[in-house]
C-alpha cells in the first residue's frame, strides 16, 4: 500500500486539484436546484436551461462588450452580471407565470410542466444562438496559467480553474450558510423548508418566499453556467447533461441541504478525477455509484432528515 502511494501520490495530488475545480462547478448548479426543491417541492427540470442560458448570455455579453472596448479585467464581472440578469428576469417570470399554477398539483404533473419548459427553452436557445459552438474565454485568459511542480517537471493549470472556480464556490457556500442562518429572510426560508404548513400557520408569506427562493435558485443556476462558459464551448444540449448530474447531487445530499450539496459535489468531483487517473472506464459511473451507495444506506440523503408519513 505504501508503495502504491509512493508511486501514485503525486498523481493523486493532481487529481485532487482537478477534482476541486469540477466539484465547484457541480456545486454551483446543484445548490440552486436543491434550494428550490427544498422550499417549493418542485423538481425543476428547467434548471438545466437556466444554466445553459446563463452560460450563453455570459459568453455573448462578454463578446459584445469586448468588441466595444470593455477592458479585459472586467470580463470576470461580466459573468456575474450575466447570471444576475438571467436569473433576475427569468426566475420571477417562470415562478409567477408557470410554477405558481402547479404547486398544488401532483408531482408527476409538475415534472411534466417543467420538462415542457425545458424543451421550449432548449429551442429558444437554438433560435437565439444557433447550433454552432459559442465561446468566450476572456476570463480564463485574463488570469493566465499557474505551474504546479510535478516530478521534476511542471503541469500548467489555468489560474481560473485553480482559484476562481473553487473560490466562488466557497464564497457561495459561506454566503448562503450565513444568509440562511443569520438573516430573517434566510430563517424564514429554512422554516418553510422544514415545515411548510407550520410556517404558513405562523403568518409567513409563503408566496413571497417561493418567489424569492426560485429567483435565487435561478441566479445560482445561471451563475454556474456563466462560470463554466470561459472554459467550455456552448452547443445545444449543454443544459440536459447538467440537470442529470444535478439531480444526482440533490438526491445524494438530501432535501434542501446546502452543506450536503457541497459535500456531495466534492465527493463526485474528487472521485471522478481519481477515476480518470486510475480507472478511466469508471469515470461516467462514479456520480451515480456514489448516489446509489448513499441512498442504500441513507434513503433521505446524506444530510436529509427522515420524514414521517402524515395521516
Amino acid at each position, binding site marked *: 500500500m505504501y508503495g502504491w502511494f509512493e508511486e501514485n501520490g503525486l498523481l493523486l495530488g493532481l487529481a485532487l486539484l482537478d477534482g476541486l475545480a469540477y466539484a465547484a462547478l457541480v456545486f454551483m448548479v446543484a445548490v440552486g436546484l436543491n434550494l428550490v426543491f427544498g422550499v417549493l417541492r418542485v423538481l425543476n427540470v428547467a434548471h438545466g436551461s437556466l444554466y445553459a442560458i446563463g452560460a450563453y448570455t455570459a459568453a455573448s455579453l462578454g463578446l459584445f462588450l469586448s468588441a466595444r472596448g470593455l477592458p479585459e479585467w472586467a470580463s470576470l464581472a461580466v459573468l456575474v452580471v450575466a447570471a444576475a440578469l438571467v436569473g433576475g428576469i427569468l426566475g420571477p417570470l417562470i415562478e409567477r407565470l408557470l410554477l405558481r399554477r402547479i404547486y398544488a398539483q401532483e408531482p408527476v404533473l409538475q415534472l411534466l410542466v417543467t420538462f415542457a419548459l425545458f424543451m421550449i427553452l432548449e*429551442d429558444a436557445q437554438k433560435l437565439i444562438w444557433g*447550433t*454552432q459552438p459559442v465561446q468566450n474565454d476572456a476570463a480564463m485568459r485574463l488570469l493566465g496559467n499557474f505551474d504546479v511542480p510535478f516530478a521534476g517537471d511542471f503541469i500548467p493549470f489555468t489560474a481560473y480553474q485553480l482559484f476562481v472556480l473553487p473560490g466562488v464556490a466557497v464564497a457561495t457556500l459561506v454566503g448562503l450558510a450565513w444568509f440562511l442562518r443569520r438573516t430573517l429572510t434566510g430563517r424564514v426560508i429554512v422554516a418553510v423548508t422544514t415545515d411548510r404548513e407550520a410556517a404558513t400557520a405562523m403568518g409567513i408569506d409563503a408566496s413571497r418566499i417561493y418567489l424569492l427562493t426560485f429567483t435565487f435558485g435561478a441566479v445560482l443556476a445561471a451563475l454556474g453556467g456563466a462560470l*463554466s462558459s470561459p*472554459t*467550455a464551448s456552448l452547443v*445545444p444540449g449543454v443544459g440536459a*447533461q447538467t440537470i442529470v448530474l444535478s439531480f444526482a447531487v440533490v438526491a445524494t445530499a438530501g432535501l434542501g441541504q446546502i452543506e450536503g450539496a457541497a459535500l456531495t459535489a466534492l465527493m463526485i468531483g474528487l472521485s471522478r478525477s481519481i477515476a*480518470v487517473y486510475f480507472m478511466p472506464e469508471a469515470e461516467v459511473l462514479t456520480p451515480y455509484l456514489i448516489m446509489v451507495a448513499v441512498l442504500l444506506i441513507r434513503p433521505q440523503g446524506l444530510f436529509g432528515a427522515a420524514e414521517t408519513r402524515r395521516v
Partner: protein
Amino acid sequence: MTTSSSLSRRSVLAGAATSGSLLMAGSGAEAQPAKPAELKIGITTFLSGPASVFGVPAKQAAEMLTDQINAAGGIGGVPIRPIFVDEGPGTEHLVGEFRRLVQSEGVHVVFASISSGSCLACTPLSDELRKTTVLWDCGTQRIFEEGNHPFAFRTQGYGTPEVLAPLLYLLKHKPDFRSIAVINQDYAWGRDSWELWKAGMDAMKPGVRVVAELFPRFNSTDFSTEITRLLALRPDVILSTSWGGELVTLVRQASERRLMERSLMVLPVAEASMPSLGRNMPAGHIIGSRGDHWINHPRPRDKASLDRFTAAYQARFNQPSIYPCHHMAQALSALQAAYNKAIAAKGGGWPNDQELAAAFRGLTFDTPTATITIREDGQGLEDQIVGLSSFSSAYPYAVPEKMMLYPAAGISAPVGQKSVDWLKTLRAGMENTAGSAI
C-alpha cells in the same frame, strides 16, 4: 343494364390487373410509375442536441441546393421537395419516422442519417420497404461489411479511410513517435474509430506504447482532468476523433494549458470545428475533414463550382460550409446522376424503386473537388485530404498545409472484407505509397 354489365366487366378487369400487379410486385417486378408532380426526399438529420452542429448546416445546404436544382428545372423535369426529420429524439423515434416517410408521405427516396446508430437502424428498413436510401453522412464500417442492402448506398467515405488517412499522414510526418494517448467521446464512433486506428497502427508500426485510453462522457464540457493526466504522461501523439463543441472545448482547454506544445495532436474530424476555433487552434497539428472538401483544396476538380458553393452558402447563412454541407451536396449530386442514368436506361420513362436502386450501383458522380464512384457493395469511394493546421490571411481560421491526398480505393477495405481484419494485414511502408502530396 348494358352499361351496368360493361362497368362490371371493367371492374373485373381492373381488379384482375391490380391483383396481377400485386402478385408481380411480390415476385420482384415493380409497378411502372408515372412521372410524379414532385420528387419527395425524406431527409433525416440532427435538428436538436449536440450533433445539430452538423445537422442544421446540412439541412441549410439541402434547402439551398434544392432551390438551385428546382430553379434549373428539377430532376428529370420534376421539382424536388425535401421533408426533414429530426434524428435527435433517438433511434426508436427515427425508425417510426422512416416508415411514416415511406408509407404515409410517399417519399421517393430517403437520405439517412448523421448518426451511425441511425443508419444501422434505417438500412434494414430500406431492405424491408424496398426504398432507395442514401446514407449521406454516417461513417460506420459495419453497414456494408455485416450485411447486403440492395436499396442502400453511401455517397461519401466511411470510418476506415477517414481514420487510416490521418494515421498514414502521421507515419510519414512523424515516423519516430513512440507513445500515443487517445481521448475520444464515449460512444460508438469514439470506440470504433480507436479500434480501427489501433489495428492499423499495430500492423504498420508495432511497439507503439499506448499510455492512456480516455473516453470522457459524451457531450462533456470539461476535460481538465484528462488534460492534466496527458500533461503528466507526455505522450508523443494524442489522437482524438471527437467533433463539434466537444472538440472545440478540448482544443481550447488543451491549448490554453500548453498540452499542444508538448504533444502532436491528430484530429481526423477537425474541419467542421476550425471556424469555431478560429485563431485558438494551434498550428502544426494533423487535421482531417472526412473527405477531400477543404475550402483551400489546391486542385479541386471544378474550382469554379467549389467556390460557387462555398460562397453561396456563406452569403445565405453567414457561416462557412463545413463538411456535412458537402456530404449533403454529394448526396444530391448522386441522386441527380442516378435519376438521369435510370431515366436514360428506360428511354425517358420515370424509374421505379428497383430501377433507381439499380442506377446507384456502380454510379459515378461529380463533386466540386473530385469524382465519387459507388462500389458494388453500395459504398462510396471518397478521397481523403489530410494536412497540418496552418494560418494564412485568406481565412480567419486554420486550414491545412503540406496536404496529402489519399485516393479512396487504396485506403478502403476491399469489398467482402471487414475493416479491422483488413487493417491488420497492412504493412510498414504503406505511408509512402498510399498518398501523394498535393
